[in-house]
């Protein structure tokens, strides 16, 4: 029952919408990214050269791919802390099994993909059937996988695999005009990103978001929750595998490759405006978050900030980015489309309105919040969008300010 009639917006209106979208929590990451890139280019003009810039994308590619994988897990309401260990393990497998034998590249690559899918399967099944919180499962998997890998290799990898295999992460299509070289990593990233966008628009992709938002409703709608959840973990492990393949080429084989990637991925995803706890977010924003994070590090590097101070900056940026999206705008109802947030937004923490299980309008009683009149003012906007959704909702329960950012993932 689509009640709203759409009229063609004028150009000025479109520009205003774009502006608003950029400043919205969903679009803020793109604004941040643009600001950072411009700042880098100002400090170091050679960065803006196409050949340099394409190399920047090459180095961010593994992080962005991992962020895309983590996006699916987080939007489904869970965590995947095992990604770093998966990357390390895959890198070591490549190093040890391929050796210098180019002929083994393809079989080992297939083995790596199968292994990645298997890890994701194990994670997902334990979360779905044994009901262990995903935080715990993936934490245990992280410890166990890393320990097993180090045990297998005796603490040090055999060595870098054959150059043919490493070409994926290091090389590219050379002698191109303008950009000089188009790294394979960039192509792989483009393919993965395109696949992710396509996937998130498919019914299955939307089901993941639905599951993250409200598992009970999703189940009532007939989805097999366990399969959806498990597949998100498989996607995440596979993305870590692909990142591992790229890293083998880029960085070589070493037991410390990939360490900490899960936290980088989660940070990137959160920077991209995806809500921890699931149910909302755009995959491109997650990838943009990865780029923004790397651009931030590069900026700090070029600006000469000592490496010991960078962690503090990273921490501050993370908090500010998430706080921005949580407090300054009301969050949108459903995490799809480029819906501009309602201008009548009550800046109050009614932003996280629908995160909790049943959907809800803004809270009329505001013990800790601000003016009730402003709160009720926002009700019509969600009502319209809700109608457009045409999904059955039980009686609304007043929202809670913090609910959106609750750690729902896991139990």
């Amino acid at each position: 029952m689509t009640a709203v009639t759409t009229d063609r917006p004028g150009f000025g209106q479109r520009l205003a919408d774009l502006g608003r979208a950029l400043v919205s929590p969903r679009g803020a990451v793109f604004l941040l990214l643009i600001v950072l890139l411009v700042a880098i280019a100002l400090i170091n003009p050679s960065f803006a050269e196409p050949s340099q810039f394409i190399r920047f994308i090459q180095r961010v590619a593994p992080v962005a791919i991992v962020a895309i994988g983590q996006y699916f897990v987080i939007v489904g309401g869970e965590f995947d802390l095992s990604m770093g260990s998966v990357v390390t393990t895959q890198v070591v497998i490549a190093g040890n099994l391929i050796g210098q034998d180019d002929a083994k590249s393809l079989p080992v690559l297939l083995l790596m993909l199968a292994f990645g899918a298997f890890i994701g399967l194990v994670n997902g099944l334990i979360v779905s059937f044994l009901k262990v919180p995903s935080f715990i499962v993936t934490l245990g998997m992280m410890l166990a996988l890393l320990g097993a890998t180090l045990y297998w290799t005796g603490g040090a990898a055999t060595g870098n695999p054959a150059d043919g295999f490493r070409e994926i992460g290091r090389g590219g299509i050379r002698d191109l005009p303008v950009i000089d070289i188009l790294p394979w990593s960039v192509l792989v990233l483009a393919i993965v990103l395109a696949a992710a966008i396509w996937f998130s628009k498919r019914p299955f992709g939307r089901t993941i978001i639905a599951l993250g938002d409200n598992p009970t409703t999703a189940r009532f709608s007939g989805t097999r929750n366990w399969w959806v959840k498990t597949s998100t973990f498989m996607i995440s492990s596979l993305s870590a595998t692909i990142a591992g393949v790229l890293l083998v080429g880029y960085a070589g084989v070493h037991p410390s490759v990939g360490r900490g990637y899960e936290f980088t991925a989660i940070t990137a995803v959160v920077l991209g405006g995806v809500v921890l706890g699931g149910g909302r977010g755009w995959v491109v924003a997650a990838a943009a978050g990865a780029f923004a994070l790397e651009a931030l590090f590069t900026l700090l590097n070029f600006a000469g900030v000592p490496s010991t101070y960078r962690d503090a900056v990273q921490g501050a940026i993370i908090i500010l980015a998430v706080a921005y999206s949580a407090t300054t705008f009301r969050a949108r109802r459903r995490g799809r489309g480029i819906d501009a947030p309602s201008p009548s937004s009550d800046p109050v923490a009614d932003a996280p309105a629908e995160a909790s299980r049943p959907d809800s309008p803004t809270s009329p009683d505001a013990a800790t919040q601000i003016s009730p009149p402003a709160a009720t003012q926002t009700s019509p906007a969600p009502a319209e969008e809700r109608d457009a959704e045409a999904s059955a909702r039980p009686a609304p329960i007043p929202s809670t300010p913090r609910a959106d950012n609750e750690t729902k993932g896991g139990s």
Partner: protein
Amino acid sequence: MSTTTPASVRRTAPRRRRLDASLIVGIALVAVIIVGAILVASVGRNFFSAGNIRDILTGMSVLGFVAIGQTLVILCASLDLSVPYVVSLSSLIAADLMAGNPANIPLAIVAVLVVAAVIGLANGLIVTKLKVNGFIATLGTGLIIKGYLDSNYKGTSGQVPWEFQLIGATGIGPIPISTLLMLLVAVAGAFFLARTRTGNHMFAVGGNEQVARLSGIRTARPLIVAHVLCSITAALAGLLLASRLGVGSPVVGTQGGYDLLSIAAVVLGGTLLMGGRGSIWGTIGGVAIFAVVDNVMSVMQVNPFLKDVVRGVVIVAAVAVYTSRSVDRRRPRFANAAPPPTASGSGPANGSDAREEARA
């Protein structure tokens, strides 16, 4: 309306409710001790000798402090990932202020606790006022503290006077003083949760914040208090480490992996990661299980890489045992009608029944 479900609810729900979380952890701990004692005996050592008991209890103390605070935070449905850096910072401030002079000890302790309280307050305010998820907020503050530590401390620093080192070194028989202090704090924590208003409110806020707020609870306050207390207990852990090491160290917190291990211990102890249910004693049990497993593996000289594998498996298996049994995570809103949602792991087959129940 199906007739079997209410009966099964009636039949199973009371039995499930009777399985107390702490009891399960206690049983698991006893089981682990028995297995451990057998394994240790197989390499010719006595599990219950004074030295071994002291090793286990010492291993419990530091993590125990951190885990007690983490329990409070998790009960409120938040997380605290900044604890390792608070631990390191506390040890450094303590050692620097004491500077080998026993007269400085009280000042140093007070200063450390104040700094930790401020950090906890910042965490709490970021979570409640800026509406940032606990995971992200404390990850951020942890990184900020890390940046500060890395920039200003190049290595160990300070000097802890002998009198203060005694806390980490002495004991009553095989039981170290530090463990007794930790248990004392645990008692205080349990009392706080059970008997004070703020403590009770923590359960409410963690369980269902909307309902808590509708019931008239100021939902921000328990959360802020939880974060402050968590940072304070982390500071206590830092003080204990300063006492044991004799100096302050900027990496002692990260060396111990206290963030993820404390969360694992808390969950192992039966506290729900999404808040609202749990107990301090369960957490202590979880910490004890970790300490026993570590001790047994060390005595058996297990390869350090395999130790991590065992730890990972133990964490997941232990929590799985707990979560697959004590299932009553969300009390059904309509007790006679809807089955517990978790029982619906069998998917759509029960979907229609459940929907019918829900409308009843």
